[in-house]
């Protein structure tokens, strides 16, 4: 229902502690935007500035067309789900969900209608009279969602809402959240440190590191065209292989192999990046083949990962599960040069 814009936003605690540096993001209306990054990267601070829980040192945050820098949290028409859920322990589930509506002095029947509606969506009907302590973790999480839903806010803020759930429940809730996003047709801004959540849920992902926005894009974009070494390494499991290389024209020479580059680059030092799935047991057409001394073999059923040495570099490969290989073997592998990346050694920015 509203776009959100971060416009040169800076958050500084003291002169030398800056946690968010010049953040520029446009979040479109009804978009599911995920802010992802390692802990301490400033993503939560960015969200809390939007929520109005932290002051903005420099720049502007806009919800729709309205600059909200000096608008009180309650007047920003947002709802937030906390990592800890922040349920009021002394209030029943119903009262927890009705609380924000009471704050708006809503008519009792309208309030009732909304709470009932939300509780139906979330399957909380049987628990309305209970106190939070009598609920399971998943139920509490849904109450926290319900409290956000009832307000029909312009923007939904979610601060690592799944991190207190177990793995199975987390998977389910991920799907429920996406459904909810579709049903509510509202802007969602979701903060997480888990790139899987980011990849699976986000319409777009904004990756942050050390207070600096690294890249914004769809999950596919970010995966296939990481803007820099950090993004490349952060997104995807197992992580991308990074091999130091010396480039000249359109070849890159590593310690154990040579790879043909799709584009010619200036001669010099760089880091070659390729995902495990780019290194397979199929021989490469352009001759970028290499030999790996296998240390560990991981069979996952659908896939088989090989961890080993290529030259003096540690590398991971994803091969056909039927390939027969044992630790200590030397495997013949081919590199798919169409999906390799090269990063500048100094700036770590991607050439391609």
């Amino acid at each position, binding site marked *: 229902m509203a776009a959100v814009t971060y416009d040169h936003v800076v958050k500084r605690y003291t002169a030398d502690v800056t946690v968010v540096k010049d953040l520029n993001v446009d979040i479109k209306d009804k978009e599911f935007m995920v802010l992802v990054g390692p802990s301490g990267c400033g993503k939560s601070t960015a969200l809390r500035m939007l929520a109005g829980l932290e002051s903005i040192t420099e720049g502007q945050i806009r919800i729709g067309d309205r600059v909200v820098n000096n608008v009180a949290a309650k007047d920003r028409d947002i709802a937030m789900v906390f990592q800890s859920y922040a349920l009021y322990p002394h209030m029943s589930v119903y009262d927890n969900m009705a609380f924000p509506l009471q704050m708006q002095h809503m008519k009792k029947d309208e309030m009732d209608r909304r709470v009932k509606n939300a509780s139906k969506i979330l399957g909380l009907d049987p628990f309305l009279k209970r106190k*939070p302590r009598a609920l399971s973790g998943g139920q509490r999480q849904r109450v926290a969602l319900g409290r956000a839903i009832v307000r029909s806010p312009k923007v939904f803020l979610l601060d690592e809402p799944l991190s207190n759930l177990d793995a199975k429940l987390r998977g389910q809730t991920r799907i429920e959240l996406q459904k909810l996003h579709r049903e509510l047709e509202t802007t969602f801004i979701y903060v997480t440190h888990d790139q899987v959540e980011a990849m699976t849920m986000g319409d777009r992902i904004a990756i942050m590191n050390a207070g600096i926005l690294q890249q914004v894009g769809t999950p596919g974009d970010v995966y296939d065209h990481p803007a820099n070494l950090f993004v490349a390494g952060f997104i995807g499991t197992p992580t991308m292989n990074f091999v130091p290389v010396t480039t000249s024209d359109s070849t890159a020479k590593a310690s154990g192999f040579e790879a043909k580059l799709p584009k010619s680059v200036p001669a010099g030092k760089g880091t070659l990046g390729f995902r495990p799935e780019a290194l397979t047991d199929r021989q490469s057409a352009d001759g970028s083949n290499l030999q790996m001394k296998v240390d560990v073999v991981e069979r996952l059923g659908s896939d088989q990962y090989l961890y080993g040495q290529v030259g003096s570099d540690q590398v991971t490969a994803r091969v056909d599960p039927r390939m027969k290989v044992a630790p200590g073997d030397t495997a013949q592998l081919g590199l798919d040069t169409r999906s390799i990346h090269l990063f500048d050694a100094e700036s770590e920015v991607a050439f391609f």
Partner: protein
Amino acid sequence: MTVAAAAQPTTVAARFSPGWITQLLQRYMLHVVVIGLTVAWMLPTIGLLVSSFRPFALTKTSGWWTALSPLEFTLQNYTDVLDQSNLGQAFFNSFMVSVPATVIPVTIGAFAAYAFAWMKFPARNWIFLALVGLLAVPLQLTFVPVLSFYVNTLHWTTSNLENIGIPGLPWVPLWLAHAGYGLPFSIYLLANFFRALPSDLFESAEIDGAGTLTVFFRIILPLSVPALASLVIFQFLWVWNDLLVALIYVGGAPEVAPLTVNLADLTTSLGQGSNLLTSAAFFSMVVPLIVFLSLQRYFVRGILAGSVKG
């Protein structure tokens, strides 16, 4: 638990130890320890209670535990207190003193503790420290300056306040005095408690549209019931049992003097009538105990459980 664990030396098991004895010991050890400690703790009070029912002459020559043989009990000490003191008026006065002198510092203290715990303002920590430091000021030193402020600046004395005729007015200086003396402790205790509340709750409420007042009245206060209950009890006890501050600020006139003053007057300046103090002590304990017992249920387990933990 610790005691139960320690009370089972392993060396005994090697010699003679049918399993059920050890188990029995283990099972009842806790109760034996708990009840034993409680009884030991009550011994002085029991002694006083028994003595209060014994004829005065006997308490001088034999211990209270001999009271059963020969069985010699009397209600004399209690009836004497009822006859000699003006208990009705004194109880009333004590309530008139204690209730506001508890409510004022706890409420004002809660306001301030909220600010100290959750608002930012200059010199916050230093002011807070100064408050804790002021806990150590001996009250006796403050009497003259404070009282002369009342008398010389405000021209307030108990009797002219009484003459205005507004109910409770003669006690106002005493209320404020108890508030002033009780506030550092109130603020210290409550601020530490408030500070320990999870910040997510307030932030969530803030986003939900709750103002400062709503957060205070609808979230902080309900969540702080155990701390508030303890504080109410302590402040009430302190005021109820106070003698010196009452004597300084309202004096010993029977129309205004609280129970403590009244009961202290049972003995003469030379100490005659000290037998009455045993029974008087029980009269003065009744109300504090009722207050404690009625607030006891608020010390419940885990009021924060389920709020922010996964």
